[in-house]
């Protein structure tokens, strides 16, 4: 037992001390944090430039409809296009909107002149104003009062309320659940591959540089294999933990640092979405979307999410890394790994590919069985859990996963034991099967 601890220690330290580990550990949270911060930051940044738009409306239909926005102001011009263009575009941030007279009953064509980027917010706003106005005119022409249409517009808010055992009701929102589920599933997929391949590489390194025979004179093959697998699992957990901590640290540092603590990131994100709401011209919903989101997020059981993430990561990793260890032990050359890697990866890739179907029907028979079979359950169950899965299903799935990796490590141990000392033999499935039964 002491020896397996030595192996775990070596496998762990050698990887944690690597430059690539340190870089990944720092880069991961930076990327993650910037994914959250960057949109808000960019929005804030781009809005710093104020836009003045001169409107030359030859039709006379639209110019009164453009109202000044946060960073956009409109003014009317009445000369001809060439003169106004010259006048209007004297510096950056000044634009000319030209709506020419047409023979059509309703003019739907306009030109926007600028000496820089016009920006998505502005173009969206102009289009939406013109669209609404043109539609109103058309409705009036057919004898319908646009106000009737406006007042008949409703916005449906559907709250999913799941009634759990004991009558506890929980508000749920499918979008948030889909996001969380797929994120968890993809993370598990990514982690299993990333660290599974490290097991494969580590085993192959030992076999190729022939140190394995020296080590095996001191420890049992199974000890060496499990020591490596567990050591790398701990590297994975360390990295995961550091990512969470560092991401949180970066986010907090960013919020209090850059924005001086006065305005926080969420405000910016929300104001950004409000602008686009306004621009499209829809009436804002009754509920503030952010109170809704927090309500839903608090409805999801994060304890179960995090526990099952760790469990399925570890279980799935143990299952697959034992396959990877067996492959690494069996083959001599890197090139030979490909033919064995593919069939092993198929269940993983399949579960990710099916994630779209699973989020649509998290309770279907297929979703159920995929989340029971150990080969696919780590990813599929992770996708299903945010939608609420009965505890017994999770328990059965987890037990099956444990049984699955016990069988897989036992099988892998047999292939590994024989393969690791076998050189110069072209390995195929028939030979592996013989080793397994030997």
């Amino acid at each position, binding site marked *: 037992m002491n*020896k397996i601890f030595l192996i775990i220690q070596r496998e762990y330290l050698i990887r944690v001390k690597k430059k690539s580990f340190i870089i990944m550990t720092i880069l991961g949270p930076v990327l993650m944090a910037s994914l959250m911060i960057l949109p808000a930051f960019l929005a804030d940044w781009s809005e710093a430039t104020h836009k003045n738009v001169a409107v030359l409306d030859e039709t006379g239909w639209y110019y009164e409809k453009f109202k000044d926005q946060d960073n956009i102001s409109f003014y009317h011009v009445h000369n001809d296009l060439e003169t106004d263009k010259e006048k209007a575009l004297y510096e950056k941030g000044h634009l000319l909107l030209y709506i020419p007279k047409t023979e059509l009953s309703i003019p739907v064509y306009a030109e926007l002149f600028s000496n820089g980027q016009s920006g998505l917010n502005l173009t969206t706003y102009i289009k939406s104003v013109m669209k609404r106005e043109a539609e109103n005119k058309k409705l009036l022409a057919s004898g319908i009062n646009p106000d009737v249409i406006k007042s008949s517009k409703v916005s449906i808010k559907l709250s999913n309320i799941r009634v759990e055992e004991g009558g506890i009701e929980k508000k749920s929102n499918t979008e948030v659940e889909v996001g969380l589920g797929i994120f968890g599933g993809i993370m598990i997929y990514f982690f299993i591959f990333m660290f599974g391949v490290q097991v494969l590489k580590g085993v192959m390194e030992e076999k190729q540089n022939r140190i394995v025979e020296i080590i095996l004179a001191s420890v049992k093959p199974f000890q060496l294999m499990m020591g490596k697998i567990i050591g790398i699992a701990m590297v994975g957990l360390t990295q995961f933990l550091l990512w969470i901590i560092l991401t949180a640290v970066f986010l907090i540092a960013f919020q209090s640092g850059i924005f001086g603590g006065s305005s926080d990131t969420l405000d910016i994100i929300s104001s950004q979405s409000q602008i686009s709401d306004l621009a499209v011209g829809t009436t804002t919903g009754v509920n503030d979307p952010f109170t809704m989101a927090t309500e839903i997020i608090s409805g999801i059981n994060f304890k179960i999410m995090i526990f099952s993430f760790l469990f399925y990561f570890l279980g799935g990793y143990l299952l697959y890394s034992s396959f990877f260890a067996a492959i690494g032990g069996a083959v001599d050359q890197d090139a030979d790994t490909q033919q064995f890697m593919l069939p092993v990866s198929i269940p993983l890739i399949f579960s990710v590919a099916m994630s779209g179907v699973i989020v649509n029907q998290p309770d279907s028979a297929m979703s159920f069985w995929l989340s029971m079979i150990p080969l696919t359950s780590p990813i599929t169950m992770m996708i299903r859990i945010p939608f609420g899965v009965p505890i017994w299903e999770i328990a059965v799935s987890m037990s099956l996963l444990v049984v699955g990796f016990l069988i897989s490590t036992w099988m892998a141990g047999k292939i590994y034991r024989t393969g690791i000392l076998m050189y110069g033999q072209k390995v195929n499935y028939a030979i592996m099967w013989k080793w397994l039964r030997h």
Partner: protein
Amino acid sequence: MFSLEAINVSKTYINHKALDNVSIQVEEQSIFGLLGPNGAGKTTLIRIINQISVMDEGKILLNGEPIKPSDTAMIGYLPEERGLYKKMKVGEQAVYLAQLKGISKNEAIRELKKWFEKFEIGSWWNKKVEELSKGMQQKLQFIATVMHKPRLLIFDEPFSGFDPINVNILKQEILKLRDEGATVIFSTHNMASVEELCDNIALINNSKVILSGGVNEIIDRYKPNIFKVSYTPHKSIDLKPNAFELVSEEKLGDLHSSRIRLLNGTKPNDLLTALTSQVEVHSFNEILPSINDIFIQEVNQSPNSGNE
């Protein structure tokens, strides 16, 4: 006190028999040579003694007791195809390997420093293994094999890849370890080193032991009883037909050289007596086979040779 005995060990791989009823006896504090062509089964036997492979039948006894997993701490093994972790530092790696053999970290560091001093390689401690030359790596491997003070040392082709100076250093170290009480098993093709170092040998061919015993005893067993004499003047000697047989004769300058086989238990002195009465004897030597000759002769004679 340390002796090793393999009794009727057999091992079958999926499609061939690697060892067939192999028995060897290694006396304590002796150097034992395990000889045989490639593929004969030497490495399989060594792996079984190291408990890397499991035998199908038979027994391995250490000091008369069946071998058990904890015995690996008493064994030092240098495999033929050997390697090290390339990215690991020299000192760390040697300490790790010693710890796997069951000695504490502090003891490993102490012992290692001693060996590094002896081989004058103290400056290597913090180098990565990939920065070392092949010969340097082999020195490190040798140290890793012996640093936990094993009672039984097993070397598989220890001298391959070493330059003659280092081979000499190694030989001296191995003899010293033996004198300090270690028992040594050698597997090698290098017959000269066998005659120089080994007390006993076993020759394995096609999974079977075809010859074993003390080196001198085996040479004695295989000697053709031929003596080479040189004498003056040039003439053929008159020999008793039932006692001697003239194998060949030639003129070497002033000397006349003959090879004479002793028959039917005739003693060398009888030949000398016969010679001195007829000619002036200048030299008188027994022709002894080398282990190399015996090896080739035995391997070629055994059935199915050359199939492997």
